[in-house]
């Protein structure tokens, strides 16, 4: 929290290294131009990866605190996420259902979190 932190070269070097890691991981399987094909089963399996990745990020962020499952239902995140998902399935097919998920979820989350301290 220092007021005017100094820039140092070591940190800038690390940042450059981290940027390289972003390129390497995001492009990992298409860095090389050599032709090869994923086995068919792997390609079929990967269609389940996007929703799995989202769920793997979301669920712990909603039902866990400090590395443990919640022991109370008084947590604003559960209600916010549930309200957002409910809105999505209600408005599915209409325009901007995803945007509505964010807005409705926050409209439920913020009062519970800031007002009741959940």
């Amino acid at each position: 929290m220092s007021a005017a932190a100094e820039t140092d070269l070591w940190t800038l070097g690390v940042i450059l290294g981290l940027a390289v890691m972003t390129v390497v991981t995001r492009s990992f399987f298409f860095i090389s131009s050599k032709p090869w094909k994923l086995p068919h089963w792997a390609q079929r399996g990967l269609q389940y990866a996007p929703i799995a990745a989202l769920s793997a990020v979301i669920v712990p962020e909603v039902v866990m605190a400090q590395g443990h499952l919640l022991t109370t239902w008084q947590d604003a995140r559960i209600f916010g996420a549930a309200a957002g998902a409910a809105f999505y399935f209600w408005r599915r097919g209409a325009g901007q259902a995803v945007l509505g998920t964010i807005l409705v979820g926050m409209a439920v989350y913020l009062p519970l979190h800031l007002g009741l301290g959940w």
Partner: protein
Amino acid sequence: MTALRSLIRHTEFRAGARDMASVAPGLAAWGLMTGVTMVQSGMSLTEAVAMSLLVFAGSSQLAAIPLIAASAPVWVILATSFCVNLRFVVFSAHLRPYLMHVPRGPRLFLGYLTADLSYVLFTRRYAHPGEDPVQRRAQLAYLAGGSILNWASWQAASLLGIALANVVPLHWGLGFAGILALVGVACSLATSRMRRVSAGVAGAAAVAAFALPFKLNIVVAIAVAVALCLLLEPPAPPDQREAA
């Protein structure tokens, strides 16, 4: 450059940007919190701006921030970043058949720009790689439109967070909007029974494996969900498969 200009004029570029726009508030809330966190951890303005503009990967940045503050060995920081980013390695396998027609330089640049939601929205719109130049162009334009808007909203919010680091209250939990954006996109993907199974399995596995270091629980959860779905999937020849 002219290639990029003609991509921007493609109607799918606009479609990609429009789909990304509906999740942009969530991305922005996340970017804002990441910007604030960088400055509050003691990084200088230059360092925080450089990290935001160059690294462009929220979870990797958040994992690296305390390690940088503690002057951890460089290889530890980079290895941590690689592990936290492992899900992108999985995504890159999925994206490979869509992108191999692009020359290597632009391909890697496109890969660099393709963050979680750009990947998810792209594969949601295109279940299969393009088969002719016209389809491939349209797909590229959609990916570019989404990725560029993703980049711009994330960077704008992150730089704003850096500038307002001492004013934005972290305890409000604004970053939760990022999770809600993912909830919305996940709901939009839950169109088949097997996909809902995938989501359920991955969620449970991510909680069960939460104690793993470097957010490895996420990549373990993806692996478990994909493997289980392959086992449970009703066998069907590829050409009769539902174009999910």
